[in-house]
């Protein structure tokens, strides 16, 4: 009897310690420490007023008119960016994947290069181009010397436009991948049944890629709500506040309670939208087929016909305005002794670059750190994200759902709040990493995991569950299934995820700005510090040019290792 009960106990213990439970345990510990704990600290701080635990802070902010104005501005801006990026990114992706447009490679190149330009750099070039004393004003002054130039450089509309220019590549990548993968045979069937091209597009193609629009739209929406740099640059000077700038202001005013409450409001707003979009996504599924078959269906693409010239002109104007002009403006400015001086040969110099490369130790350190932090954090984030998505896909239960949802949480949390949460969580034991480079790397991981999950999830959804079940039946262990079966099918998403994360690390400001210590400065800190010191836009432009060049180099390297096929 005893033997039997001992055997039973051993069996139940063995059952308890099966691979799935061990993976769940490890993931849970990691997720709680890395994601939940910092965010919970923010929630908790909203309840602390003058050292006492009270809901006073929440009541005060919920009854404050300014909070609602900031929230309304944030939502207006986020929806504005969402619709503009859907339109821009979607149209260009369609042009590349579904039409006979001749210069597809140029579109691919320009879109990626646009994504290489950090958002605050776009806002800097926006100021350089349209503001009083900017390039447009200067050109007009040459023609009409007495012109009274006036342009509303600082507004919510300007913020929305700049963020749209910055974020539309995300939509482009997402929709292009979905279009590449979506079944052409259904389109064939539609056409064979007498449907016109537009009818097939509206009734078959569009519904098939709609989940991708929603999925990537969610990313755009949350990144817009979380953006601080552009709003601070273009909206705050006009006295227009959004939630992130409100948080920053509260921080400047040493009001941690308000800062935490506003963060909670922002998180809840983002989460609500996330929940609505996600519940839509859960009801929909992609329909994919083998990519190799697509190539045989080239006949089915839209022919631009006579409108080719018109499309060429529109696309050219678009890239001139959103990419070439800002780049020219930045390049010229980077060679000026001081931005704002007359453009004469005597006012041009190489000194800005000389200072950066040969005199400024800060720049070299920042460059090195940004690259290293970006590589380390994106590799760790990828490893975590792949396991999380795999676990979620193969174990559709509450445990997996909990891990997936918690890991996706930071998507709805602004970077600045992630940094504040990180300080509160990791300044004291048990994880005391504040003041070291690891706090920046850990916070980057927090930021990157949901981004990679988004990149990978769409691809993972298309893998038939039966494959994993068969491998499991054949006795292949979980690690083997992830590495040999799951990873090869999602690797394109993984590589594009790494590339995106690395580029984010190159230009990220709020996290490193709040968490850096001596020796751990990044390019973002450098840019912010330069703008705050005696250097003008000329030095910001010089650093921007270097960041853009590095981004391009990274792009080439990443393409060499196979990301081109992944859709970048």
């Amino acid at each position, binding site marked *: 009897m005893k033997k039997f009960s001992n055997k039973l106990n051993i069996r139940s213990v063995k059952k308890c310690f099966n691979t799935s439970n061990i993976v769940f345990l490890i993931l849970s510990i990691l997720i709680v420490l890395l994601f939940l704990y910092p965010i919970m600290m923010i929630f908790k701080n909203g309840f602390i007023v003058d050292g006492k635990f009270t809901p006073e802070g929440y009541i005060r902010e919920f009854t404050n008119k300014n909070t609602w104005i900031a929230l309304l501005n944030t939502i207006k801006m986020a929806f504005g960016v969402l619709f503009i990026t859907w339109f821009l990114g979607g149209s260009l992706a369609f042009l590349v994947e579904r039409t006979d447009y001749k210069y597809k490679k140029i579109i691919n190149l320009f879109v990626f290069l646009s994504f290489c330009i950090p958002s605050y750099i776009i806002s800097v070039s926006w100021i350089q181009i349209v503001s009083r004393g900017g390039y447009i004003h200067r050109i007009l002054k040459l023609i009409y010397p007495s012109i009274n130039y*006036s342009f509303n450089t600082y507004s919510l509309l300007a913020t929305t436009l700049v963020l749209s220019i910055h974020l539309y590549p995300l939509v482009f990548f997402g929709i292009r991948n979905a279009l590449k993968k979506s079944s052409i045979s259904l389109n064939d069937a539609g056409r064979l049944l007498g449907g016109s091209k537009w009818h097939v597009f509206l009734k078959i193609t569009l519904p098939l890629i709609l989940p991708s629009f929603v999925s990537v739209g969610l990313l755009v929406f949350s990144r817009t709500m979380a953006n601080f740099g552009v709003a601070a640059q273009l909206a705050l000077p006009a006295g227009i506040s959004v939630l992130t700038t409100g948080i920053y202001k509260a921080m*400047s005013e040493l009001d941690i309670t308000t800062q935490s409450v506003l963060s909670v409001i922002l998180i809840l707003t983002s989460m609500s939208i996330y929940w609505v979009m996600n519940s839509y996504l859960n009801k929909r599924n992609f329909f994919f087929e083998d990519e190799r078959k697509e190539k045989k269906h080239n006949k089915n693409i839209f022919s631009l016909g006579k409108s080719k010239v018109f499309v060429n002109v529109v696309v050219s104007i678009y890239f001139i305005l959103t990419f070439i002009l800002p780049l020219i403006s930045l390049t010229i400015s980077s060679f000026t002794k001081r931005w704002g001086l007359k453009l004469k040969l005597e006012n041009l110099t190489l000194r800005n670059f000389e200072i950066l490369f040969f005199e400024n130790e800060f720049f070299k350190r920042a460059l090195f750190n940004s690259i290293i932090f970006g590589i380390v954090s994106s590799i760790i984030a990828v490893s975590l994200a792949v396991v999380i998505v795999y676990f979620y896909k193969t174990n559709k239960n509450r445990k997996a759902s909990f891990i997936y949802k918690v890991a996706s949480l930071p998507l709805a949390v602004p970077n600045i709040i992630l940094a504040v949460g990180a*300080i509160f969580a990791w300044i004291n034991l048990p994880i005391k990493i504040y003041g070291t480079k690891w706090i920046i790397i850990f916070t980057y991981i927090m930021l990157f995991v949901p981004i990679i999950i988004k990149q990978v999830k769409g691809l993972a959804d298309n893998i038939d569950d039966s494959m994993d079940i068969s491998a499991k039946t054949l006795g292949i262990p979980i690690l083997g299934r992830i590495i040999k079966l799951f990873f090869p099918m999602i690797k394109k998403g993984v590589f594009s995820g790494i590339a995106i994360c690395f580029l984010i690390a190159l230009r990220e400001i709020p996290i490193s700005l709040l968490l850096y*210590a001596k020796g751990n400065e990044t390019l973002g800190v450098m840019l912010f510090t330069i703008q705050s010191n005696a250097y*003008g836009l000329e030095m910001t432009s010089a650093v921007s040019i270097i960041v853009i060049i590095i981004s391009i180099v990274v792009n080439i390297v990443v393409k060499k290792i196979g990301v081109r096929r992944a859709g970048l």
Partner: protein
Amino acid sequence: MKKKLFGICLVLTLILTACGNAKVEEKGEVDKEIETTTQENKSNDSKTVEKETKVAETEEKTEEKTQDEKLSIYLSGPEAMMKKLETSFEKERGDVVDFLLMSCGQVRNKVWTEKEAGNIQADIVWGSDPMLFNKLDNEGLLATLNLENEKYIDESIKAESDNYLMVNERYVTLMYNSDNISDCPKSYEQLKNEKYANKVVMADAGQSATAFSIASCIYQIENNDINYFKGLKDNGIKLSKSNGQVPSLIIEGQFDVGVGPHDAFVRLTKKAKKEGYEIPLKLVWPEEGAIAIRRPMGIIKDENRSEENQKIAEEFVNFMLSKEAQKITEQFGFVSVRNDIENTYLPKDVKKQLIDWNKATECEGEFKKAYEEIF
């Protein structure tokens, strides 16, 4: 494929290594000037030789200090000035301090966030505004100072508490772009004039600690009448994130008039002269007077700090009041708090406007709320 990948990685590594090893040479005109001043001061100091011997001894000990063991100082100010001060202080002591340079607002945010998290990481804080130091002091977070050079400090500039000191002073002025306007405003009141509509810029009190000081003082000058700021807003005033940006935005031509501290003007003018170009920036002392902004410094109380580091912290605070350090800051546009260094920046006929910090702290909530409503 692997070879290619290896090749690319190798090239990247080489670039990074080359980047990391490039030699640093920094010898600007201003720096040279300061070096000369420093050397002159030193030769006048009878204790220098004695000090240097002591230092040589400590240098060996401190040479191997890791980053964690060094004294961490959060500060704001021009980078070149901070580098000069660090070099000057460490010349006698070895690599013992770590400067973490930020803007005034960042210093305030970082210190306060760390305080709320229960652990201020800095040993010394320099910059921001007296309001932060008053708050830290009220919570018992500042160590009492033992100032060797106290007798040299101008009585009118002394801090309200013994636990922090004022290191420098600077003045708020009106600035304008001489290429764009000839008729410049003479007072803060005139900034509301329609002819300056959409052409005025000042730093945002919600973002910058110094800007908050300036706005508080203007509020006091205007007899706590918030309508002044309403008038500015109605006249299309724009807000910059820091005071340092104000003169830059005027030079760039984005705005014609601005409110900002004089030291940024001094540095920009010096830089332009050095680099051989002209900037269309002119300065006007406001009729209401020049608002004096002071930059406080204090040592954070820490029972776990080693005796050696506590000593270095005290030495640093005293160093900042030394003639040598004060001369360095003066070269960068700041006014010395020492009574034996002449104030060459404020014209004698210009009235100095002092911020009543007690009054400012009293009205802080009311002013902030009203300011937020407007902007």
